[in-house]
């Protein structure tokens, strides 16, 4: 367990850095896939089986595929770094660093939690119970959101017709 955590964790961090620092969007996307998979492993260690499955199927399997598809389609050219990149890099690092510090500080003082989970924790049945008992409204709104997203995507990505401006 412990070992799994550390391996998966390290992999996740490494992959995330790979995403952020990659030169090429394709490589970044693939790194992110790796990161997502590590996270799925971590979910399993956390007894969140359903979420792990969803992560792989939806996130890594559908969203990232979509990303890669778009990357392939657009084929943006290589970009050379500009002069002001340094300033931005420094600023970004600074902000991220401070953010990390601010986030870590309370984490270090939380009390210890522990204990075994009950049987059936994290199963599909359990998720279903939580969602359909406590979060029915968000669930329904979510379907509306997905509908809107579908419609939006279709319109936005349409090929331009005569007389239409940028969608």
């Amino acid at each position, binding site marked *: *367990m412990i070992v799994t*955590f550390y391996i998966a964790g390290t992999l*996740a*961090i490494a992959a*995330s*850095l790979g*995403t*952020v620092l*990659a030169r090429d*969007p394709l490589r*970044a*996307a693939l790194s*992110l896939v790796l990161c997502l998979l590590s*996270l799925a492993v*971590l*979910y399993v260690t*956390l007894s*969140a089986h*359903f*979420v792990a499955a*969803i*992560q792989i199927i*939806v*996130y890594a399997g559908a*969203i990232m595929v979509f990303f890669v598809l*778009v990357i392939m389609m*657009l084929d*943006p050219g290589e970009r050379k770094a*500009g002069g002001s990149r340094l300033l931005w*890099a420094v*600023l*970004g690092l600074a902000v*991220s*660093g401070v953010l*990390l510090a601010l986030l*870590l500080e309370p*984490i270090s003082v*939380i009390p*210890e*939690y*522990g*204990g075994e989970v*009950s049987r059936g*924790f*994290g199963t599909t049945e*359990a*998720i279903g119970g*939580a969602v359909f008992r406590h*979060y029915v409204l*968000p669930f329904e709104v*979510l379907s509306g*959101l*997905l509908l*809107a*997203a579908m419609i*939006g*995507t279709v319109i*936005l990505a349409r090929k*331009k017709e005569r007389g239409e401006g*940028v969608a």
Partner: protein
Amino acid sequence: MIGLSHYLILAAMLFAVGTLGVLTRRNILIIFLSIELMLNAVNLAFVSASRFLHNMDGQAIAFFVIAVAAAEAAVGLSILIAIYRARGTLNVDEVNIMRW
């Protein structure tokens, strides 16, 4: 023992890395990917909290986050396609038409 704090520290680090990517990179696609990274970091936090506090709500929320992330990615990428078609570039600096 691996406790809640371990997982939360990991989540925090992933989140920080994602922020770094958003603020630093110029390519819109990579910025998008960094945003997804941040979302995942949050998911990790929720799920780990759910496990250690013995409450299914965290996982339910993670479920919703994934669904919303899907919708957002779809729409966002369509916009990106539209921008690419209009501007011919995916560099944030170059799609800016405001005078400085």
